[in-house]
């Protein structure tokens, strides 16, 4: 069973079906945990949220919150969305088109008396920085404004679970920052599980306690952000997490692999046998730029090659480096790039921290 720790598994989701939308997920979160759900487009993230909210019923499934069973297809339990008390931000907002922003929010609090309701709705709108627009209809609001009304509405219900389907996708950085802080403080204040679907890995890493990676309806990996970033189980997870320095390699022994023309030392090859073909990830953390010319060639994991391409994005530059066919990508600050005179076609040398190098099953 899932709730092995102390019985207070806050949200536990199990869904299994083949068609029409393939699903095979089993996720459980602790109360007060913020779980980010990421995965390629069409991987079933929205479907999982809808299942939790009671808007989609998987063929086989068990969903429980704080010990209360919301869905159990074996026992024929299926609570209605109303009974489930979730706050859900729809990917496409799904605002009530005939109601003003404040009424959209107030309507989620029908159990409260009408004066309090209006006041609290206004407060919630202020919290998502929509003061002054509360009497506009959705059709008179911009995309980002609509999304924030949807967020306020989801919070209004005092939910037992908060489900956010890309709640910040339509808002700019300046608007998003305070919203994220709202979410973080909410997360601290409320002792409820929050599931956040997002395409922004940084956002997921910054906000989430754990990240769950979905692909084609399957959970690829679930764990702390750094776990997924540094020790992804598959190449897919690695790429989703923004890691691009990936290469094919062969296991040589307990601490060595052959990668292109290099023999590299690694912390551990895990349970890969000698001779096994593997895929290897070099997380940015384990790559450090050395000074070229210094004769460290004897040193383990010292590579030298050439800069193939430099892509500048804002304060950072992404280097594409070729070490005899082993291609690594590294993001450095513009400052460092300037100090080191990094330029296309310039020679470059890097040292790889053996502990950081991560082996995965071959693709």
């Amino acid at each position: 069973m899932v709730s092995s720790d102390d019985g207070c598994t806050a949200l536990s989701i199990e869904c299994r079906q083949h068609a029409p939308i393939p699903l095979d997920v089993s996720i459980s979160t602790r109360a007060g945990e913020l779980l980010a759900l990421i995965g390629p487009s069409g991987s079933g993230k929205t479907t999982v949220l809808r299942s939790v909210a009671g808007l989609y019923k998987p063929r086989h499934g068990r969903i429980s919150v704080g010990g209360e069973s919301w869905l159990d297809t074996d026992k024929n339990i299926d609570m209605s969305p109303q009974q489930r008390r979730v706050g859900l931000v729809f990917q496409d907002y799904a605002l009530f088109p005939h109601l003003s922003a404040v009424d959209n929010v107030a309507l989620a609090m029908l159990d409260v008396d009408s004066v309090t309701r209006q006041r609290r709705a206004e407060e919630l709108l202020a919290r998502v920085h929509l003061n002054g627009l509360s009497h506009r209809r959705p059709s008179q609001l911009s995309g980002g404004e609509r999304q924030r009304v949807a967020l306020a509405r989801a919070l209004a219900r005092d939910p037992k679970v908060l489900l956010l389907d890309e709640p910040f996708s339509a808002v700019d950085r300046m608007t998003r920052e305070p919203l994220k802080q709202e979410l973080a403080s909410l997360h601290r204040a409320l002792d409820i599980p929050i599931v956040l679907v997002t395409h922004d890995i940084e956002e997921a890493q910054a906000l989430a306690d754990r990240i769950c990676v979905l692909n084609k309806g399957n959970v690829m990996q679930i764990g702390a952000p750094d776990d997924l970033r540094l020790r992804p189980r598959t190449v897919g997870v690695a790429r989703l997490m923004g890691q691009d320095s990936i290469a094919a390699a062969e296991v040589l022994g307990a601490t060595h692999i052959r990668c292109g023309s290099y023999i590299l030392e690694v912390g551990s090859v895990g349970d890969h046998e000698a001779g096994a073909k593997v895929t290897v990830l070099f997380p940015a953390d384990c790559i450090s730029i050395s000074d070229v010319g210094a004769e460290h060639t004897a040193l383990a994991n010292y590579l030298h090659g050439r800069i193939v391409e430099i892509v500048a994005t804002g304060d950072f530059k992404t280097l594409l480096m070729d070490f005899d066919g082993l291609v690594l990508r590294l993001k450095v600050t513009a400052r460092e790039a300037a100090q080191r005179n990094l330029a296309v076609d310039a020679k470059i040398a890097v040292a790889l921290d053996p502990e950081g190098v991560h082996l995965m099953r071959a693709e």
Partner: protein
Amino acid sequence: MDWQAFSLTLQLAAWTVLLLVPCAMLIARALAWGRVPMKSGIEALIMLPLVLPPTVLGFYLLVAFSPQSAIGGTIKSIFGSAPVFSFTGILIASLIVNLPFAVQPIQRAFEGIPRNVREAAFVSGLSPWQTMRRIELPLAWPGIVSAIALTFAHTLGEFGVILLIGGSIPGETRVLSIAIYDRVQAFDIAGAGVMSAALLGFSLLSIAIVHTLARRRGTGAHGFQ
């Protein structure tokens, strides 16, 4: 001008709308989203009164309502009189005749409400009843107005069935359409003309009012973006 017939006609139309439209909303909603078994069959059944010539329908109602029949007899034993040749009788007939006019437009309107807007209501904790009152009805408003207008107007003009089961009793069943027909039959073209014009003007007015209402309350209902 037969003012009595005029007021009777209005009463009939008003009662028909008042009684029928709420029922039609429930039926239409069930047909739009409910898991109704034999949906097509039921939809066809609702269309039935539209298909039957009013006099045929009237004849069957006459037979059914007469004090000797099972239905008429039962009603008589309960209410003291059979529904034939009474306001109650023509009201029942009017309800039956107008069923398709009321249900069809409302059903289409309900079907037009995006699924996820209703889902949002469920998730926001609105019971099915609250969802209906606060979300579905306002959004289906233009369709409901259509239904009200069609039903009201059609009742104002209803003739065939009432002709058969009404018996043209002044103040009870002689509605304006029957009164006008009488005038035409009696070659009193002028009298028929006056009453027709009155009916016409009144209907135009009420339709215009209803439509204006529809536009007012419906604003934004089409603003799905």
